[in-house]
């Protein structure tokens, strides 16, 4: 049985009024946090207390709260999405912490993810990378070929799916010591490279997406593997290797 108990914690949270303002770490004390609460519910609780004291609450990104939309972020105690693995911040529960703990909460730090306010960052650099080539150029039509006309080996379909499971949260960038977006881009390039439908545009896709990635100011991959460990969806480093291959092929064409 889950043991229900309440803990008291100290929070050190990054507060920053807006993109231009200078921010700082602020300390808050929060009592009676249920260990059954999720991390974001704990922040809700903090905000409720702040609002009741007429202090401006902490802004943070979140939406689905079930680990799939990719909107929540947060660098908690020095790790992307907190101390647990294979989950997003919204799936992190307070039972991972102890009474009296001090918890650091910071926004994703990356030149390509500027802070908007408090813990909210701007991840539109990811959007622009996708817009540069993360698609198959097929128009809407009731007359594309039948879905079963092109068989796809199960192995390829499964691998493509694993790559496509990326939720675009940016944890890979946040945790990478170089702020590299290679896992994110590699996953998208891989998904299409593995499927016959994506192969037609493979050359242009990888060149365009990598070019855009570089322009956005992400760092370079040094294969530390941190991204793979912290990725809430366990996207494999294989995808980065595949992108490296695809890029080489495309560059030599």
């Amino acid at each position, binding site marked *: 049985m889950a043991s229900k108990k309440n803990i008291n914690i100290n929070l050190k949270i990054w507060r920053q009024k807006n993109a231009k303002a200078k921010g700082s770490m602020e300390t808050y004390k929060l009592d009676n946090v249920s260990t059954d609460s999720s991390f974001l519910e704990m922040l809700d609780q903090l905000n409720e207390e702040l609002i009741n004291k007429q202090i401006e609450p902490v802004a943070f990104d979140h939406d689905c709260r079930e680990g799939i939309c990719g909107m929540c972020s947060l660098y908690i105690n020095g790790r992307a999405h907190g101390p647990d693995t294979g989950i997003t911040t919204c799936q992190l529960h307070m039972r991972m912490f102890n009474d009296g703990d001090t918890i650091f909460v910071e926004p994703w730090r990356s*030149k390509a993810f500027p802070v908007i306010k408090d813990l909210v960052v701007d991840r539109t650099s990811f959007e622009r990378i996708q817009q540069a080539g993360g698609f198959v150029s097929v128009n809407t039509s009731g007359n594309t070929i039948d879905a079963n006309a092109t068989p796809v080996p199960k192995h390829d379909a499964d691998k493509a799916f694993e790559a496509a499971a990326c939720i675009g949260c940016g944890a890979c960038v946040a945790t990478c010591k170089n702020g590299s977006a290679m896992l994110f881009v590699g996953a998208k390039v891989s998904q299409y490279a593995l499927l016959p439908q994506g192969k037609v545009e493979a050359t242009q896709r990888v060149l365009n997406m990598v*070019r855009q990635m570089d322009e956005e100011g992400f760092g370079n991959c040094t294969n530390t593997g941190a991204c793979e460990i912290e990725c809430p969806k366990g996207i494999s480093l294989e995808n980065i290797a595949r992108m490296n291959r695809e890029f080489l092929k495309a560059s030599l064409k």
Partner: protein
Amino acid sequence: MAKSALLKSSIAKKYWMALTGLFLCLFLAGHLAGNLQLIFGTASQFNQYALFMTSNPAVKLLSYLTYFSILFHAIDGIMLTVQNKKARPVAYAMNNPSNNSTLASRNMAVLGTLILVFIVTHMVNFWAVMHFDKNMPLVSREVSEMGMSQKVAVGVLGSQAPYFPLDAKGKLNAEVIRRNELTQKTVTTVVDKDGYVVFEGQKDLHKITFDFFQDPKTGLIATILYVLAMAVLAFHLLHGFQSAFQSLGVNNKFTPAIKSFGTLFAIIVPLLFAIIPVYIHFVK
């Protein structure tokens, strides 16, 4: 687009890091094989090897490739590191990377810089001495002539004279000694007043190596520093070897084997390198 991508893009920079890095791994293996003769071979074998390494044109080509690789690897690495630093202008107040990556993988630039410093001192200590030191000892042996024992330098194959006498200090007893720039760099040539070559003696790399690590004042420190440098190299290789394959796009069913081999390589090669000075200092 495609052409410039092979130079400028972040991924291409990693190809070059990987290619030069892997080439340097090959170099390490070759260098180690030669060095091991310090333990398992005779002095003369070692000096023969040194002669071969500096005279064979194919080896020469390889050595230029090695210099290029080291330089490129270092410069490319520095550029990447600068970019990487810029990609995170504000650092985390609390960071806990040990949960997701190895110390070595996060510190390749630091390790690489240390290795570069080592390479420079290493070259100063041995390569430069051998190439530029006019007082470099030559391969010698005792000869007995008329009951008198005397130390003489041994001529290389094809030398005008088979021996050349040495003075009490072990230096060439000649009136004119000039290093011949045109011939092999491990050879000291004795030319007479008219410019004729009278003797070609081989520099004794084996001896300076032993002297270096057995020096009563600095030998121990040199040995320790050398061993430390090899430890740094080991960490660099520990991440670098398998990382190079990943950068080149090799991540498949062979990856576990590559990783295991890389780990073995990263431990064994620097370890063997490190054993040599230890052996020289303590055993010989």
